[in-house]
C-alpha cells in the first residue's frame, strides 16, 4: 500500500526532515508512526498526502509513484486517502453534515447517496443525529470524530492521521483509537502518527519509530 525507498526530504533553508528512509506498509495494516517532535512524522505523512514532495527517493502509494502525480492530478489522488488532523480542520461556518459530506460533494456524488453515506459515517463514529449541529457546539473529542467521519465518508482504502489524539484526554484517546481499529477491521489501511507511547504500547500494533529523520525501528520484527 505504501512504500518509501531511500526517501529524503530537505526543506528550503536546508533543514533535513527525512534521511534515507525506506519503509513498507501492506494493505490492511494498522501502523503507528512514533518518535519525538521533529523526528519527521508529519513530513512522512505530508509526502503521502502530496502536501510535500520528496527531495530524493521514491514514494509509492497504492501502486502509484507519487512523483508521477502532476499538480492537476493531485485532487483525484487525494480522494483515495482519508486524512485526519490534530486540529480536526473542520469548517466552522457550516453544520456537521456539510463537513462530512464535503469529500462526497467533491467526488460528484448524488444527493441521496451522499446523505446515506454521511449518516453511515456519523453512525460509525457515534454521532448519528448530530448532522445539523454546528461544530463549535461539539466537544473536542466529538469534533475529532466528525473529522474522522469526513476522512472515511468516501471510503478511501487508506487513512492517515497526524496526532489525532494530541488534544484529547487519555479516555477519549482510547475511544478514538478503537474507532480506527474498527475501520481497520473492515480492511482500511491505517497509518497514525502519535507520540502517545503508552497508548501505542497498550494497543500493540506495528510501530514505525523515527528519530531525527531516520528510521530507528520499522516494527516488522516485533509486530504480531
Amino acid at each position: 500500500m505504501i512504500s518509501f525507498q531511500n526517501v529524503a526530504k530537505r526543506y528550503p533553508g536546508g533543514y533535513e526532515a527525512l534521511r534515507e528512509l525506506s519503509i513498507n506498509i501492506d494493505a490492511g495494516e494498522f501502523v503507528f508512526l512514533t518518535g519525538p517532535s521533529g523526528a519527521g512524522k508529519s513530513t512522512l505523512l505530508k509526502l503521502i498526502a502530496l502536501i510535500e514532495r520528496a527531495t530524493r527517493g521514491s514514494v509509492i502509494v497504492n501502486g502509484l509513484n507519487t512523483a508521477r502525480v502532476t499538480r492537476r492530478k493531485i485532487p483525484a489522488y487525494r480522494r483515495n486517502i482519508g486524512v485526519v488532523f490534530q486540529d480536526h480542520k473542520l469548517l466552522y461556518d457550516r453544520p456537521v453534515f456539510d463537513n462530512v459530506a464535503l469529500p462526497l460533494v467533491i467526488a460528484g456524488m448524488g444527493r441521496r447517496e451522499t446523505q446515506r453515506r454521511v449518516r453511515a459515517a456519523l453512525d460509525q463514529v457515534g454521532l448519528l443525529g448530530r448532522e445539523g449541529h454546528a461544530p463549535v457546539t461539539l466537544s473536542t473529542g466529538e469534533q475529532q470524530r466528525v473529522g474522522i467521519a469526513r476522512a472515511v465518508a468516501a471510503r478511501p482504502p487508506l487513512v492517515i492521521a497526524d496526532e489525532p489524539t494530541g488534544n484529547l484526554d487519555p479516555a477519549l484517546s482510547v475511544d478514538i483509537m478503537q474507532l480506527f481499529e474498527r475501520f481497520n477491521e473492515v480492511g482500511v489501511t491505517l497509518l497514525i502518527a502519535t507520540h502517545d507511547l503508552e497508548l501505542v504500547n497498550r494497543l500493540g500494533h506495528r510501530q514505525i519509530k523515527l528519530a531525527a529523520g531516520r528510521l530507528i525501528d520499522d516494527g516488522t520484527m516485533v509486530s504480531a
Partner: protein
Amino acid sequence: MRFFAEHARQLVAALGRLAQHPGSTLLTIGVIGIALSLPAGLRVVVNNGRVLAGSWEHAQDFTVYLNMEVSMNAAGILAQEIRGLDDVADVTFIGRDDALEDFKRYSGFGDVMRALDSNPLPHALVVRPRTDLEPKAIAELAKVLERREETDLVQLDTAWVDRFRAMLDISRRAVDLASALLALAVIVVIGNTIRLEINNRRREIEVTKLVGGSNAFIRRPFLYLGLWYGFGGGLILINIGLQALSGPVAQLTGLYTSTFRLTGLPWLESIALLGGGGLLGWLGAGLATSRHLAAIEPQ
C-alpha cells in the same frame, strides 16, 4: 444531469452567501452599477442623437433668395423652371409678402417691421434636391442656381447638420473608449472583491484541497459570486441609473418641439447589459481565482 444540478446548487449558494452580508454586497454592486451606468447612459444619449440626426433628412434643402427686382411673375416662372431640373425633387415658392407675414408673426420684430415703409424681404425659393443626391452634387446644384442673374444669395442648410453628425461620431468613439475602460474597471473591482473573499475563505480552500477538491471545484463558487456581482450591478443600473438619467434626457428632448421621441435603452440592450455585467463579473472572478487560488496550498 448531476453536473447541472451541482452548478445550479452553487449558483444559489453564491447568492445566499451574498445575502449574508447585504451591506457590503450592496456597496460593491452599487460601485459596479455606477461604473456600468456611465457608458450605458452616454450610449442612450448618443443613440438618441443619431435618431434625431436621422430625422433631419430635409436639412438638405437650401434656400435661393432672389434679387429685389425680380417680380412675382418672373419668380413663379423661375420656380417652374427649377422644378423641371433633373436633380430637384420640389421647389416651394415663398413670396416676399408671405415671408414678411411669417417674419412678423414668428420673429418678435413685428413692430419694427411695421415701422418700415417697404418690405425689405425678397422672394425666396426653397429647393429640395432629390434625396439620393450626394452632398457634392447638391453643392454643385446650388452653385448653378447661384450663377443665375435672378439670384441674390443661395443658403445651404446642411453645414451644421454635417457638423452635428461629425460630433456624434466623435461622441460615439468616446463612448466606446469609456465603455472599454469602465468594463476594465468593473473587472478590477470584482476581481479585488473576489480576492478578499478568497482570503476570507482561505481555510475552507485549504481543507477542500486536502480532501481532494479540484481547482475547478474550488473556483466555482467564486466564479458564481463574480457573476452575481456583475449581474446585480447591471440590475441596479437599469433600475436606478437609467431612471435617473431619463428625466434630464426627456427634458432635453422636450426642448426640441419636433416629433422626435426619446428611446430608452431597448429591451434587448437591457438584457445584453445584464448579461454583459454578469460576464464581466465572471471574468473578474476568473482572473482573481486563477491568480490567487494556486497560492493557497495546505501546509
